[in-house]
């Protein structure tokens, strides 16, 4: 009998894989602890709390305290996974992240739960679209955006072993499995589909949409390469340079502001090369979202597979 295969259209909340992997790691290594902000439920830590009540430190609604406490634990030999809704973890505790985690090089794993616009109708206060811009500006902090449950799992395992300051986006908006048997590789983009006309560099929720876009573009005679850029900082610059020589243009797609996230990171590589290629930056352009559910907002901001396809075909044709 062959193993059951998940239907191709099945989608997943990555918090589930995150929580399962974290509990598994905690069983193997007693240094693993979790710190949270009244977010046991929303961080999917119910099982962890049951199994390891002493190793779950819920500080209450106090994100600055949460990150500081995480740093203290890390500096005392523990491996803290600091979990909170991404907007509050990053926005509220930004200075703790900078000073206590990154600058102090305390090996804290910051887990930004439900990032991007996962909290749809709860609005811009609850959206975490600035996180990539903010955190990428901080030295000594890895910024990681897994694309699906399998990659979330391997990124969690990597982070526990790497013992370096890291930020991990843990998605809530459901995504299909896209990474297959390619585990998270720190600092390296993975080529999920090769192509010769245009490259789409995507992260997180945008990866499956980029693959869909590539499929559709192929039908129109445009060959699109899809890179899953799950490490945003430090960026895989070689993969970008290869895309510049092997394809004729680059589209970036992220559920974040383009001001300083993935698009800006890729652009900074592109414009400093001798022969830059044209680019399109898909994302949110310094705007607060109107009211609406996540899927609606992704459409509103031009982040569907169709939008990515259009941008890619536009680049291919403009240059032809």
């Amino acid at each position: 009998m062959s193993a059951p295969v998940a239907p191709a259209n099945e989608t997943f909340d990555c918090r589930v894989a995150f929580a399962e992997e974290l509990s598994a790691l905690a069983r193997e290594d007693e240094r693993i602890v979790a710190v949270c902000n009244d977010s046991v439920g929303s961080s999917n830590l119910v099982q962890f709390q049951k199994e390891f009540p002493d190793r779950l430190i819920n500080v209450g609604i106090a994100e600055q305290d949460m990150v500081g406490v995480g740093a203290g634990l890390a500096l005392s030999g523990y491996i803290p996974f600091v979990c909170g809704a991404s907007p509050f973890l990053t926005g509220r505790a930004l200075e703790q992240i900078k000073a206590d985690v990154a600058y102090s090089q305390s090996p804290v794993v910051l887990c930004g739960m439900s990032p991007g616009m996962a909290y749809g109708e709860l609005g811009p206060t609850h959206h975490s679209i600035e996180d990539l811009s903010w955190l990428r500006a901080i030295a000594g902090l890895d910024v990681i955006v897994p694309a699906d449950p399998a990659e979330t799992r391997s990124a969690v395992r990597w982070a526990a072993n790497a013992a370096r300051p890291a930020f991990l986006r843990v998605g809530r908006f459901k995504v299909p499995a896209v990474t297959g048997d390619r585990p998270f590789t720190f600092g390296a983009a993975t080529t999920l589909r090769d192509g010769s006309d245009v490259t789409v560099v995507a992260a997180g929720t945008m990866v499956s949409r980029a693959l869909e876009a590539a499929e559709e573009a192929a039908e129109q005679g445009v060959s699109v390469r899809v890179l899953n850029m799950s490490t945003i900082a430090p960026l895989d610059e070689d993969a970008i340079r290869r895309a510049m020589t092997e394809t004729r243009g680059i589209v970036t797609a992220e559920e974040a502001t383009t001001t300083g996230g993935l698009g800006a990171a890729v652009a900074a590589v592109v414009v400093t090369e001798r022969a830059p290629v044209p680019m399109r930056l898909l994302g949110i352009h310094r705007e607060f979202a109107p009211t609406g559910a996540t899927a609606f907002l992704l459409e509103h901001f031009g982040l569907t597979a169709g939008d990515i396809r259009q941008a890619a075909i536009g680049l291919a044709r403009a240059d032809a």
Partner: protein
Amino acid sequence: MLVADPGTAAAWRSFRHEFAEAGPERRREMLRQRANESRTTDLHMIGRAGLGHVGGDMSVLDILTTLFLSVLRVDPEKPEWADRDRFVLSKGHTAGALYTTLAATGFFPAAELDTFAGPLSPLNGHPNRVKVPGVETNTGPLGHGLPVSVGMAVAARLSASSRHVYVVLGDGELQEGSNWEAAMTAGHRRLSNLTAVVDRNRLQQGARTEETNTLDPLDDKFRAFGWDVLEVDGHDHLALHEAFTAPRGERPTCVIANTVKGRGVSFMEDRVEWHHKVPSAEQIVAAEAELAR
């Protein structure tokens, strides 16, 4: 930006007149009835939208109703009136309770409530002052309302205005350190034109406050920061009215309103899972029957 509903605003004005003339029992009944109407409206709104924070809405509605229908010097038809009292809902997740109360006051037509959390609605899951009259500042991340209110109270002082600033805080919310920085500033500056109301329902999102991170003795904490403290039953409208309007001394006032999360709906009362669970159609019918009593 939404605009006022003149009919409701007129009805609200006559309610205020009648309230001013009424004796204590009548006053109590007037507010009780209006608060429960708002509860019912809110439950339907949440049911329709499929999201909301029902427990905290039910908990805070007696406080909001008492403020808007019998205390605040505001004019729904002149939301920008410079000398209006300021009201800040720091626990912004209970936007539903604020929207129903603002609609009952006439700040915008009640029909607008049907759009709550819908695509492009001005009534976002957390309140937005840019789109909704009566909302004084945007809240949602906890621990922001008190510092902003302190700024508003300092501004009233600077411009020699008699306006008063009221801010409603969640109790779990008080775990945010920003509140204590602001409490210190208010105490230091003796901001007697500031009243902070704590919706003390003893529950936060995932557990009881005292099991998560102890807040008690809350009264002593505020006193130590230079505040006067009043403790009342947060569902006793007359006690709330008295606490909100009693003459102020020389310090800011903290009203600890002892409340029950989910108040008024028996199966929601004091149950942590109703923080943001959405009631089914049948549950809304059952709740409505209880609230009509």
